[in-house]
């Protein structure tokens, strides 16, 4: 289904991506967004767009992933941020307007946004 130019693009992309994958696994940032019915209804898809746009603006490369509902439906949109060697922090009520402040504080300044955090998990040993 994919025609020639797309194939070429993807081959090039693979080479480029593979080069930095080892580095990324050790130092990488992972952002996980709840995308169950509750998350979707609370605007999680828009939150995802806002996070992607903000990452681009801040020039931060991060893996962004989605998961189903974890049961705190009234706290959606829920967003977890995990950086290598740091605890995984869950933030509640991450609507689009909160995304710039959240990423600026957590990813750029490296400080927890206490008032939105609902919990954290210690980082898994590598």
């Amino acid at each position, binding site marked *: 289904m994919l025609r020639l130019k797309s194939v070429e693009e993807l081959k090039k992309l693979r080479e480029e991506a593979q080069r930095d994958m080892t580095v990324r696994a050790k130092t990488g940032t992972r952002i996980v967004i709840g995308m169950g019915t509750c998350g979707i209804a609370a605007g999680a898809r828009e939150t995802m767009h806002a996070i992607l746009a903000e990452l681009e603006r801040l020039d931060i490369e991060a893996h962004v992933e989605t998961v*189903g509902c974890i049961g705190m439906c009234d706290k959606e949109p829920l967003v977890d941020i995990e950086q290598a060697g740091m605890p995984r922090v869950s933030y509640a009520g991450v609507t689009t307007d909160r995304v710039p402040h959240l990423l600026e504080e957590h990813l750029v300044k490296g400080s927890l946004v206490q008032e939105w955090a609902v919990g954290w998990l210690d980082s898994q040993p590598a």
Partner: protein
Amino acid sequence: MRELSLHLLDLMENAVEAGATRLDVTIEESQSADSLTLEVRDNGRGMPPELARSAMDPFVTTRKTRHLGMGLALTNQAALRCDGRLELTSQVGQGTAVRATFRHGHIDRAPLGDVVGALLAILLSQRPVDLVYRHRVEDRCFALDTREVRQLLGPVPLTHPLAREWLVATLREGETELRLGMDDPSGSSTTHRDPLPKGAVSAPHGARAEVITPC
């Protein structure tokens, strides 16, 4: 939900939760036939007949964290409101197929909305799934099969920032090309407008346009 694409995302999320590894997702729009159809077929664990029968009941769910399951109930309601229906067929161990139909021109039909965002949310799922996507608008079609993309990417996951950017660009381009030259580029009735990104409609026939195939 404000957009049909949010229902679509919800149906796809159900499939992922059901342990599916492959999703066949089809959108068919036809103003001439006055119909709009969303279909999600998965190879997940499927449902026994009694559960399949009650799946549209908002007080039925397989989840243990709470006792409500709103997704299918909401989509069913949205379809019924637009002279359409929701059909669900499921077989244990084989998978589930959900098909929601809407009357295209019905005043209550929500716009399709941000399909690219909905697809992206599933492609970025923590549980990797293959997506075989087809979007037909009258006699035009845009298709994307992530099995081909994965094969070319090898060990690079779709969640990799570079892969993600490629997916967004490819989907945007494909969806835009579908509507080029149409009177109603949003595919909605005159009362609705889809929030297509500005400038997207005039996107040049770039490298990714080749993914559009007659299908």
